[in-house]
């Protein structure tokens, strides 16, 4: 979301620059009695527009919808980009993507599973890990052991909840 906010800020800056330039052009053109690009009678024309007009309603709805979308996007909970790990009381961080990639890799190698996927979240006290893969159920323990070993190496706290879900690939008749 930080990236989106940066892009939005840049767009807003561009709009403000364009607005500023428009004011300069309008002022200069008005000074030489050739108002451009906005005609001088814009105020009167705008005054003739009734609130009940369809275009006014459409513009209001569009602005309202955009505002609502932005508000929801900003308020929506997002996945953490990094996970806290503790070290002698000091906190450092591991990228969530790296943790997920390595956890999935550990499941694949240590548990001999296919198509592993891992989701990792948590705080400094506890990490929650969800591993999904294609494998027979008897691989469950091997996967979990391998995943826990990898998480320890990544600096996960002592309390880690691992939920493993193994699914056997459907056989073709």
């Amino acid at each position: 979301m930080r990236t989106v906010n940066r892009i939005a800020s840049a767009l807003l800056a561009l709009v403000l620059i364009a607005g500023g330039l428009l004011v300069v052009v309008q002022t200069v053109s008005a000074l030489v009695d050739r108002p451009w690009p906005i005609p001088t009678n814009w105020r009167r024309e705008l005054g003739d527009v009734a609130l009940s007009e369809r275009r006014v309603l459409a513009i209001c709805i569009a602005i309202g919808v955009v505002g609502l979308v932005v508000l929801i996007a900003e308020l929506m909970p997002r996945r953490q980009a990094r996970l806290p790990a503790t070290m002698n009381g000091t906190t450092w961080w591991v990228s969530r993507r790296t943790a997920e990639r390595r956890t999935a890799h550990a499941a694949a190698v240590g548990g001999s599973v296919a198509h592993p996927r891992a989701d990792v979240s948590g705080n400094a006290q506890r990490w929650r890990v969800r591993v999904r893969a294609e494998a027979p159920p008897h691989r469950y323990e091997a996967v979990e052991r391998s995943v826990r070993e990898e998480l320890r190496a990544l600096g996960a706290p002592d309390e880690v909840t691992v939920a493993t879900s193994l699914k056997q690939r459907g056989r073709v008749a």
Partner: protein
Amino acid sequence: MIIVRREDLALSVADAVLAVPGVAALHPGFGVEVATLFSGGKVVGVRLSGETVQIYLTAERVPLQPIADEAAKAAGRVLAAAGDPRPVEIVVADVTTDAVIRRTTARGTIGAHG
């Protein structure tokens, strides 16, 4: 207070962290680039603006804790020498593929003998 140019401080922090065994490189982070910008260049992976000094790195081995620990100490020493009391925040943004391969091989060897 000692006056140090921002770029000099960022470069010194970067050098100190890169000298730590197990640190493969500094990392630009994800999305908005983590860097210290100055006229004529930037130091990627070190963010000096803010209440904490952020360092994003790529590790070349696991476990990560000793690497993060040493990197934080190394950066802290540079900052302390420059009279900067801010805490250091270490983010291990990536682990090199080599480390994954080495670990996989080691695990396979243990498994074969165990």
